[in-house]
């Protein structure tokens, strides 16, 4: 039986319950055992007045990226959904409300715009909801019911999630939603008997894996909570704000505090202050906020104070494209700020890694006494995946602090030069361990000193320390066969999934191609990357920025050709375009 790999879009006007329907759909399909990657989008302006789209790719094997095309489009508002038609693949199914309040003129219905090969299913979503529940509000549920009926999916998966979502709102609301759903289901069963879109759920997993539907942002917040976050300081900015919202609800229950600061500078200042005082703290921002933080981050570098900063990238420069995805802060994250200020920059590639590496970043920040930037982007932050519960919870927090030994009491040198570059860090208020901490260059005791040898020595110390961190940082992960490769694809962050899918498809076509996932962007594992590159005739680095920022960073490690594949359209990279590039490059090689 061929595996399922389908993409469903729900599109409506805000107020239609589009996002709620998408969430229920994802949860239900997850319950049915599918792997899911979902991505919602909404316009930059005011959320209350725009088009809402939820996009879910689900299948029987692990979903790594979004797909090129939509196979099923559910329109809750034709005027909005018409714009999604360009996404439809061949023979796509389009479900739409065929009983609008009055007649509409030519072109106002989605049916006027679909290609002849599209399969239209007109169903009276609004009427069904209103008859079943006395309100049209449940039209999104009626639409889900219609879809479930057409697809022949067991409705119990939906009952479970509807129940979970609405139970707390009381019996009346729950029943209204269940009734709307059932009305849609019955309609589809009676009008389209031979379920035209049979979606067969995968066989149940042998060992039942509990899965949780989670966004990248939620995973980051959970990672921080499990790391024992005490304080969150932030200033709202898309796409980082949901982290603050999540923590505002959860952190106080754990005894922590969320403080909305007046800007990003004060946010990072407060984070440094907290860590300085021995409390784990975090801030999350986007490109414009990271730029404001640059000076303070370098203070963290100079004063060797830990900090955890999430940079949720969006289109830039400046205010840029607030609701579009891009990977163009890599240079700013790695090099941004005055002076030689090395810091750790780590980029998760999926939702589970958002959790794991945020958690890890606290330990790294403490151990290496440095700001750690967790670099994500709009697509990774807002996408949802049904991750195994074991991958995103219950991980033990590790205290990374190295405290000075007792013997140093009274003669404590905070910035003592050691082979590793790490000097034990005392917390303020410890008797006999008092030291000045400053942004000025300083001696081992912390006293300001601008002399040549001191600056040379301290620069070296700070860089040595960061290089040492490689041992604790996740190494690059290779996905390929042994031996020489015609092409190696190296990718990072949210684009890695698309790159891996492209490589797996290329390999199925018999091409000698491999993929390398780079997680730690600074410091990076030069040796492993070099080794991988040395086996590749050519290297391709696809990324969502104009310059090829990862290529700029690591391209010099390869003796051969490094091909950049850059796009700045604000939308995630797709496996198909990377695959096309791979084929194009290898074809050129053969001619």
């Amino acid at each position, binding site marked *: 039986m061929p595996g399922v790999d389908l993409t469903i879009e729900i599109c409506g006007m805000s107020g239609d319950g589009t996002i709620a329907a998408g969430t229920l759909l994802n949860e239900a399909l997850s319950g049915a055992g599918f792997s899911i990657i979902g991505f919602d989008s909404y316009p930059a302006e005011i959320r209350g007045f725009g088009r809402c789209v939820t996009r879910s790719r689900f299948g029987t094997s692990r979903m790594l990226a979004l797909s090129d095309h939509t196979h099923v489009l559910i329109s809750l508002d034709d005027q909005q959904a018409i714009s999604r038609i360009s996404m439809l693949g061949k023979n796509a199914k389009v479900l739409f409300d065929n009983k609008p309040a009055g*007649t509409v003129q*030519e072109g106002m*219905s989605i*049916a006027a715009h679909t290609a002849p*090969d599209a399969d239209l299913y007109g169903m009276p979503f609004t009427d069904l909801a209103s008859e079943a529940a006395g309100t049209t509000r449940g039209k999104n549920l009626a639409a889900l019911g219609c879809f479930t009926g057409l697809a022949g999916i067991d409705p119990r998966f939906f009952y479970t999630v509807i129940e979970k979502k609405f139970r707390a709102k009381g019996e009346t609301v729950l029943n209204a939603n269940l009734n709307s759903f059932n009305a849609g289901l019955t309609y589809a069963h009676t009008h389209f008997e031979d379920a035209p879109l049979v979606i067969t759920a995968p066989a149940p997993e042998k060992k039942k894996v509990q899965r949780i539907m989670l966004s990248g942002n939620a995973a980051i917040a959970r990672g921080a909570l499990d790391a024992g976050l005490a304080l969150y300081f932030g200033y709202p900015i898309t796409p980082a704000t949901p982290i603050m919202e999540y923590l505002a609800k959860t952190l106080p229950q754990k005894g922590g505090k969320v403080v909305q600061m007046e800007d990003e500078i004060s946010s990072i200042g407060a984070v440094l202050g907290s860590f300085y005082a021995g409390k784990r703290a975090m801030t999350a921002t986007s490109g414009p906020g990271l730029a404001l933080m640059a000076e303070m981050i370098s203070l963290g570098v100079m004063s060797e104070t830990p900090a955890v900063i999430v940079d949720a990238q969006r289109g830039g420069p400046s205010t840029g494209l607030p609701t579009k995805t891009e990977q163009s802060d890599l240079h700013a994250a790695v090099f941004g700020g005055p002076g030689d200020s090395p810091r750790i920059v780590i980029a998760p590639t999926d939702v589970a890694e958002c959790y794991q590496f945020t958690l890890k970043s606290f330990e790294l920040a403490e151990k290496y006494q440095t700001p750690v930037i967790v670099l994500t982007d709009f697509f990774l932050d807002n996408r949802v995946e049904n991750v195994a519960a074991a991958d995103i919870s219950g991980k033990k927090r590790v205290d990374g602090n190295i405290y000075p030994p007792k013997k140093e009491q009274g003669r404590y040198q905070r910035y003592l030069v050691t082979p590793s570059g790490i000097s034990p860090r005392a917390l303020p208020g410890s008797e006999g361990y008092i030291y000045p901490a400053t942004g000025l260059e300083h001696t081992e005791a912390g006293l300001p000193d601008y002399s040549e040898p001191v600056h040379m020595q301290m620069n070296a110390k700070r860089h040595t320390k960061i290089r040492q961190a490689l041992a604790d940082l996740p190494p690059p992960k290779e996905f390929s066969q042994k031996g020489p490769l015609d092409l190696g694809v190296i990718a990072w962050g949210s684009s890695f999934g698309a790159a891996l899918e492209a490589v797996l498809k290329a390999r199925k076509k018999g091409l000698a191609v491999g993929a390398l996932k780079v997680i730690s962007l600074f410091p990076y594992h030069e040796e492993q990357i070099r080794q991988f590159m040395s086996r590749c005739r050519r290297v391709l680095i696809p990324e969502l920025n104009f310059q090829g920022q990862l290529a700029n960073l690591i391209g010099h490690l390869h003796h051969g050709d490094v091909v950049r594949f850059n796009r700045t359209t604000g939308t995630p990279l797709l496996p198909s375009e990377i695959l096309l590039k791979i084929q194009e490059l290898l074809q050129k090689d053969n001619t």
Partner: protein
Amino acid sequence: MREDHFIVIGNGPAGSQAAFTLKEKAPEARVTIVTKEREGCCHSHLLPGFLAGSISEKKVFAISLDHYTKSGIKLRTGQSVVDVNPQRKEILLEHKETISYSGLIIAVGGRPYIPEPLLAYREHLCTLKTFQDTGTWRQLLPAADSILIMGGDLTSLAVTKSLLALKKKIYFMLTGEAFWPLRFDKALQEEVSGKLTKRGVTVLAGNKLVGIEPVRSGSCRVYVDGQKIKVDMIGAFFGLVPDIGFLRRSGLQLDRGVLVDEYLCSSHEGICAAGDCAQIYHPEIKDYWVSIGTKNARSLGKIAAVNLAGGRKKTRVDRERIFDIQGVKVNTSWWMEF
């Protein structure tokens, strides 16, 4: 000046031909086809061969969907017209969208006719008109050893031929309407009956159906007069009736089909009809006739389009090919050797 917008309802041989001709005669005009079929132009006459496996799906849909797009024709599939308003020059689609036209061709063909007494057994009767219908046949055929063909219009003979090729046991019930739309007479009945029997078909001539009783999924016990036969499938072929129910409120002159003159123009300006759904006036016989068959449909579609685009072309039909069936004059171009 507002651009012309020609709408063709139906994408069978008549409708598709009409649309392509319109685009040819009036290249500047918008041409839209609205069809309730989900697929492209289905050549129904190839469906029996498709069931037998001798005709490919690609051949059944001889015109590719791309060809419409490339020709500048907007094809709306899976959309039904539920009303026509000649005063406002508008059609209304089932999903409540109205479209204005400057010229309209109705080419909705026919739908399978089931005689009133048999409606009670509808769920056991398989018809074959659209490509979707083949789904049921293809689902049931592999497990069906014996099949009863009822009614017996021209299509039933083609279907029987295909089923014999699949080595099925066929029972054939020749009734009074057996040769619709051909003239029914004893000589013809005997001729066909003889040919069928020679091919191994069990002919139940002149018998009357008493009842149908499902046995297990798909199989039925059929009571015909005194006898009882067990079959795995029943095909019903009682001819096609013009599918014009949606025009009842339009004010257009209707009888069995849409009444049109020899130029295929209806009682209302700017509206023509073509193909199986048109009932055409024939000045020589001073009566209306219905045309059946793919070739007829195509040529009528072309004539309707030429005339709607400002031409003046008459339909032509040989007198001797017109048959009188239940008071309706029928022309068929496809009576084939069985």
